[in-house]
């Protein structure tokens, strides 16, 4: 505000300036818009315009052929998705994905970060460089090697399991409906765990060590310190990673599902976003895809709202 006032003042007070600078003043007015325009126009055109169109498409029937006019069908698409089991299955699977992902994105990383906190050695940097590596690996390359590791006959996992006598026949990790969801979680979790550990470590380094010193002087035990100092001060990181896991797990697992299982067998590994993809680009039913997109957009939006509310109440910031 103050800069705008400052920059506007000389123009208004100087009478001689006023003549020459009508165009200059206009230019000054629109300068901010010129700078923000490229990003704003692109975001409006590629995010908000299609979002509005998706709302429109959700009440229509259309096979995405540009030569065919969409037909308005009212709320039929919504009726369809709410009464067909594949929608419920995708929602249920997503819930399972989120719950099973939490050990990799929140629980284990937090435990590891707390347990190894203040390990003041150069080794720590080497550990970090190594356990962070999965995060930057291309997802299709990861899918390839995990499929090889999990191969039912020749894969290393089954080789080890059978030679140890745990199983007699190789587990079909990616094609057995009891295993497939767990296998996808393992792959996505493998990608996340190192990164999450780093996030929690970063959260821990922000904690003032004098708190612990004071607690030690008061004779408090280590576990009590963890409970009363570490966890409250770590709560912003915990909330962030929890929110990311809930909102993004369906996104993190998407590429592995598409490359390794296509949601199968019999929908056992599909999730909400993969369902949208299946409706849209496998069945070419843009109405169903859009109706489901509207439902999930609103659902996740409400979840995000709840999270930010809780965050404001619960997360403890050390000022």
């Amino acid at each position, binding site marked *: 505000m103050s800069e705008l006032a400052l920059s506007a003042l000389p123009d208004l007070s100087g009478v001689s300036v006023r003549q020459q600078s009508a165009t200059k003043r206009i230019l000054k007015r629109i300068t901010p818009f010129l700078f*923000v325009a490229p990003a704003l126009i692109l975001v409006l055109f*590629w995010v908000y315009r299609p979002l509005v169109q*998706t709302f429109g498409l959700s009440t229509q029937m259309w096979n*995405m052929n540009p030569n065919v006019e969409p037909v308005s069908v009212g709320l039929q698409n919504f009726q369809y998705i709410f009464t067909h089991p594949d929608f419920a299955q995708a929602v249920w699977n997503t819930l399972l994905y989120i719950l099973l992902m939490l050990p990799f994105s929140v629980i284990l990383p937090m435990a590891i970060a707390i*347990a190894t906190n203040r390990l003041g050695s150069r080794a720590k940097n080497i550990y970090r*460089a190594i356990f962070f590596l999965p995060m930057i*690996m291309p997802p299709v390359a990861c899918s390839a090697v995990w499929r*090889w590791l999990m191969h039912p006959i020749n894969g290393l996992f089954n080789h080890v399991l059978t030679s140890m006598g745990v199983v007699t026949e190789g587990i079909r990790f990616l094609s057995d409906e009891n295993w497939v969801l767990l296998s996808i979680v393992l792959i996505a979790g493998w990608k996340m765990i190192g990164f999450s550990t780093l996030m929690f470590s970063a959260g821990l380094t922000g904690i003032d060590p004098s708190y612990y010193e004071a607690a030690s002087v008061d004779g408090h035990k280590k576990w009590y310190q963890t409970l009363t100092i570490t966890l409250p001060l770590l709560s912003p990181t915990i909330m962030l990673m929890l929110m*990311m896991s809930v909102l993004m797990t369906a996104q993190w697992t998407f590429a592995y599902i598409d490359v390794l299982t296509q949601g199968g067998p019999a929908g056992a590994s599909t999730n909400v976003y993969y369902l949208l993809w299946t409706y849209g680009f496998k069945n070419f039913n843009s109405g169903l895809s859009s109706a489901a997109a509207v439902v999930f*957009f609103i659902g996740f939006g409400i979840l995000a709202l709840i999270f930010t509310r809780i965050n404001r109440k619960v997360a403890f910031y050390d000022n």
Partner: protein
Amino acid sequence: MMEELTISKRRIHWQNGLKHLLLILLCVFAIFPIYWMVISSFKGQTEIFNNSLLPSSFSPDNYTYALEHVDILGMTANTFFMAISQAVLQLVTAIMAAYALTRWKFPGSRLIYTLFALTWLVPIQATMIPNYTTLVGMGFRDSIVGVIIPNMASAFAILSLYPAFQSFPKALIEAGMMDKMSAPGVLFKLILPNIKSSIVSLGILLFINSWNEYFWPAMIVSDQGQATLQIGLRSFMSAELTSWGPLMAASVLASLPILVLYLLLQKQVIQSFVKWGIK
């Protein structure tokens, strides 16, 4: 007294040992699949199925096979083109927007900020059908350009740069204005040189994200000549279901540029991910 000291010292040693063990376990879990990918890629045809932890000899056969059967070099070029254009365009649009939003308060500036901030709630699958039909209508099916165009601006990049711009001292900007610096002048001569490291590390992050991008390329490019590494690798995977050796070799080649980048700039890469999180 002495005894107590050695006991506590021993306890610290023991505890440190446990910490190292925990981190080593995490490292083994993280690195093993990548290690397996690399060594499998060097194993000969008979050896690949015996699951040894080291190949008896390093054979380049899988690499020659993969290079002969898929146009890995062409796909690498495509992917470089896509990743660099996206990272640069996203940086440019983000720098301009973050500059405008932090330097001036203008009508609608709050609304514009909010519009950027809320995009992360819009999943890509909720916009894919309209965007797909738009791109096809523009004639960008099967073209790398069609992948880049919807990704020229990144709200994530704008929001990441926003704090860096905001913390730039206002007094310096005012001093620049006294010297009759223009708006772009202030940006290029004053601000950018001072926040160079933020920009570079965000650029690395955007490059890696774009390199690994799967969703848009999978939707837009299917043609081999325009395929990115991710897409080419996927079709190689479904075409050669059991040629594990060549598949691992192709996977190594698809990851190689990222691995080299990581080897060189490992600290910055980690920092930029921790600082800005995941998209």
